Each structure stands twice: as C-alpha cells, then as structure tokens.
C-alpha cells in the first residue's frame, strides 16, 4: 500500500487560523500537522480551526496527533474548532471526548460565527 499523504495549508480569516487538511491523518501526517501548526503560530491567531472536510481517514495514530496539537494549543491558550467532520469521525471525536476540548461545528461559516461570538463575550 502506498504511503498516504496529508496536505495541510494555513490561511488567516478574521484573526482565525484555518488549517485546511486534505488526505489521511495517520502516522505519516505528523510532520505536515506540526509544520501547519508552526505556520499558524506565526500569524498569532486568536483561534485555530481545523478543516476536516477533505479528510478521508483518521486512525488512532491520527487521533494521537490531534491530541498533541490540541495540547499545544491549550498550552498556548488558543481555542481549537473543528469543522467538516463526517458523521463517523464526529462520533469518534465524541467517543474519545475530543469534542469536550474542541468545539465541533458543521462548516467554516459556523466556525467563524462561533469565534465572533467568543470575541464579543
């Protein structure tokens, strides 16, 4: 089986760093995820949003990478939002309780709205 690839591109939207993920989040995704987080840090965002809408596969190693990224964001006091998860992976985020530590919304607009609400509070 060919090694899976993850592409992670960072963009800033209204102070929120959005990491667009494309491909598989497994053991091969570690470097791409770390690089994306470091790139997002340079933009000093108020929040971090992970776009899973083009992610096909997340395994337990991928979950561990997301836990590491979340731990680092918490340390940096940056809220993390996830959007675009399939029903199956949204359920996995609930089972693993990741959804207790990052807000799960349906799409990018909802993610932006949530960040705006948080700012205004």
């Amino acid at each position: 089986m060919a090694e899976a690839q993850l592409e992670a591109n960072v963009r800033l939207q209204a102070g929120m760093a959005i990491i667009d993920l494309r491909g598989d989040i497994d053991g091969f995704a570690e470097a791409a995820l770390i690089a994306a987080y470091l790139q997002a840090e340079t933009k000093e965002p108020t929040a971090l949003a992970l776009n899973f809408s083009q992610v096909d596969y997340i395994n337990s190693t991928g979950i561990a990478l997301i836990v590491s990224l979340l731990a680092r964001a918490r340390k940096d006091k940056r809220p993390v939002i996830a959007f675009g998860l399939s029903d199956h992976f949204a359920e996995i985020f609930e089972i693993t309780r990741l959804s207790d530590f990052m807000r799960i919304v349906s799409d990018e607009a909802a993610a932006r709205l949530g960040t705006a609400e948080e700012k205004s509070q």
Partner: protein
Amino acid sequence: MSTQNRDLWRILARSGAPGPTAPEPESTPSVEFTPYDPLVAYLQSARGVVEVDRLDLDSPALRSLKEAGVKLTIPLVAQGELIGMLNLGQRLSEQDYSVDDRTLLSSLATQAAPALRVAQLVRQQKDQARRSERLEQELRIARLIQQTLLPRELPKLPGWEVAAYYRPAREVGGDFYDFIHLEDGTLGVIVADVTDKGVPAALVMATTRSVLHAAAERLISPSQVLARVNNQLIPNMPENMFVTCLYSVLDPMKRTFRFANAGHGLAFRRGAEGVSELKATGMPLGLMPDMRYEENEVVILPGETILLQSDGLAEAHNSRREMFGFPRVKQLLSDHPSGPAVLIATLVAELERFTAGGWEHEDDVTLLAIECSALGGKAAESARLAAPEVPLPLQAEFNIPSRPGNERLAIQKVSEAVQDLGLSSSRLEKLKTAVGEATMNAMEHGNKYQDDLPVHIRLQASNEKLSVFISDHGGGQRIPGAATPDLEAKLDGLQSPRGWGLFLIQNMVDDLKVTSDETHHTVELMLHLEGGQHG
C-alpha cells in the same frame, strides 16, 4: 443385393428381372441370416453364378432363399470377404438364364463388388464419425457434471491443513470427493468412486453426492450414514454399477477421525510410529440392501497426516504393465514427512515418473491429505478457544504484509468482502475503523513490522453475525485490556497521546474477543447483522 452388419445379413430378394415395361413387384422379400450360416462359407469360396436350387446344404439361409424364389445368386467378394450377394428370381419369360446372361451377371458382380465395398467403408466411416462425435459430447457433459460437483474450495480449520488433488481419466471416471460442514462443528469428508465412466458414472455420482449430504446432515455415525445411503441408492442404481466410498467425520477440536468404508481403497495414517492403514470393512454402495458397515475411530495427534485416495494412483500402470501399488504409496508417505500439499505433489510427481509419459490416464486420480498442525497442548486448547463454537461460512481469507500503512489494504479487502452483507454505511465505517486499528496493532505489536510475518485476516458470516478474525505472530505476550484513555492526562502531557487503538475497536463493534497461544494472537471483531446493538 444384401446389406451387412457384424451379426446379421439381410437379403433383399426381388423376384425376376423386370424389363422396361414390367410392373414393379409389390414387395421385396427380405431374408436374414447369420454370418455363421454354412451358405456364407460356401459363397465365400464360390466363383461366378450359383444356382440356388442345385445347392444341397443344411443351411437356414439357403432354405430362406429358396422360399423367397431366388434362382441364381452371385456372390460379391472383395479382398476375400463376402460383402454381398446379387440375387435373381425366375425370369419373367419363365425361360432359363442363358450362358450370356450368366456371363453378364458374373462380370457385373466382379465390377459391383469393389464399388459396394467402397460404399460400405464410406458408410462405416460416417457411422464411426457420428459415434466419436457423440462420445466427445458425452465426455464434455460428464466432465461438466463432475466439475460442478467437486468442491470449489478446501475447508479452513484452525490447527489443520487440508490439501486435495483430482485428475480425471481420459474417459472421465467416477471419482469424487467432498466436504460437509456439519452443525456441531465437525467436518464430513467423502472420497468415493463410481464404477463405469462417462455420463452414466457422472449421473450416479451426482445422485450419490446428494444422498450422502442428506444422510450426513441427519446422522452422526459414518457407518449409519453409509447404511442409509446404500439403501437409498439401491432402487435406482443402474445394472452393473456400484459406488465405493470412504466416509469420515473429522472433529477438529477433539482431533478425532471417525470413519466407515464401503469397499473403497485403503486410507493411511502417518504418525510418529510410521504409516498404518485405516481399516473398516463394508460392501460397496448400491449392491445389496441392508448392509452393515464397520466403523472405527482414531485420534490424530499434532503432526500426523491422513491420506485418503481413490484407486487411480495405486492401480496406475507403466508401459511394462507394472502397477504403482499401495505398498509404493505407503512407502512414499513414510519417506516424505512434510505438509499435505507437499505430500500430494510428491505422490503426483512419483506417478508421472513411474509412468514416464506412458500413462493414458486409465482412471481418475483423487488424493486428499489432512494434517493436524504441530500445536502443543496449550496451543491446541487456545486454537480451540479462538475458533467459533459453530463455524460460520467463510466469507474471505487473506494475508496482509506487515508494512506501515498496510491497514488501508486490510480495510479495502474487508470492505470488498462484506459488500453483499447489507451493512449500513455507518456500520461499515465502524467496521473499517475497527479492522484498520486491529490490523495496525497486529503489524506493529504482534509482528513488529517484520515483512515476512503477515497478518492473517479471515471473515466468516451468517445471516445473523459477521466475525473478522485478525491474527498475528505475537503469541505468548500479555495482552493489555481496553482501558478508557485519560484524555486530560494526555492533554496535560502526563501520558502519551497514543493508546487509542483497542479503545476505538471496542467502541466500533458489537463484541470483541482476544485470544492468544504460544505463537499467535487473534482478535475477533463481531458485528450482529440483524438487530445488533449499533443498529
């Protein structure tokens, strides 16, 4: 004129030689006689025209000719063989045949004989071609029936290896073998041979197979199965046909092999103490009603092999008309103590060497070898525990090389194998996650990502349940339970962020069983296919 076949001559006698204006006689008398009639011997050596009334032979044929009004007969002889007769009755003018008439008739017979012979040969060749075509067609049908009846795959039994070989004779004999997965988890094994060849044998084979299946599913004892099959076959068995059959029941858990024999060839058992014959007496099936069959049982120890066979191997001849023989089979079995597939390959290679291309596939050759894998007591017990109590039908079975990322290959193959089971997309996604996680664990923890240690995946399914068995080579290790990961501790850096695999698997399937022995570690993922807890 006459027509000829092997056993009968038919003489068509026409009274008189009609002229251009003479009316056609209403009928042509027919006279039949055998090739052994004295008249045939006489005409064979006679020359020219023979006056029938002047002959004095004790011959039914001659009497018949006279009664039919034949006056002259001119033998048609080609290459010293009487191939026909030219018969003439009384002339219409009632005058005697003249010398010129007789000369003309002799000359006509001399020219007609070779022409008639050519016509006979052409007709014989056409008949032969039609017979050959019909035989070929029958052979094709017989082969088709036989191929349809032979099992398409070998049984997969934990702790057992099974190998089979079948080669049809040129004329397609009546060998067949089969396996019956019985409800109590045992395996019925049939090796049988129908006398005769071609379509009749294939049809009897099909009937025998059906009756055997029906009996085996109702009765436990092999001797009772054979007794019932015998009585059911007798009313419809064609004359001069019968079936030899060795029927056995293998209990893979108890390692017992119980068998009864209806006149079939020898079965052998190869163990630490050498090769022994598995004997049980009994008459072939379909000969006499209410037969009793002896039944015996042996325990197959790890490393031991059972060889079942038809007589096609032992009774094969070489160009010197020597027979391969059971002693040679026994010796080869003793000399090659390896796995069943290697054993069968060895026997077939020896057969080829023995016959050295001179063998014309006299009879079908069927070989079936069953070997108990060399597991120790605890390992065998673990294998027993790892196996389902009632084996489910096999859905798929494959190996995955232990390489990073290959869990995706396992997911893909499992998805393909279950596509006809009607899983909802939600259930399928959960199964895919569970299979991916279990395969990753097997490759990483069980096989340490060693390329030569594959992960073995087997899927078995019924209408109610799907089981996916994922096995690695990490036996003998302690298997940690599926504890719920402490996410707070992981986020605070107090625990490794990893350790989600078993937890995920447990939450994706309806039930999870983990078993282990000295060499293997197996995870069984179970999904209820109707009314399962995940809907």
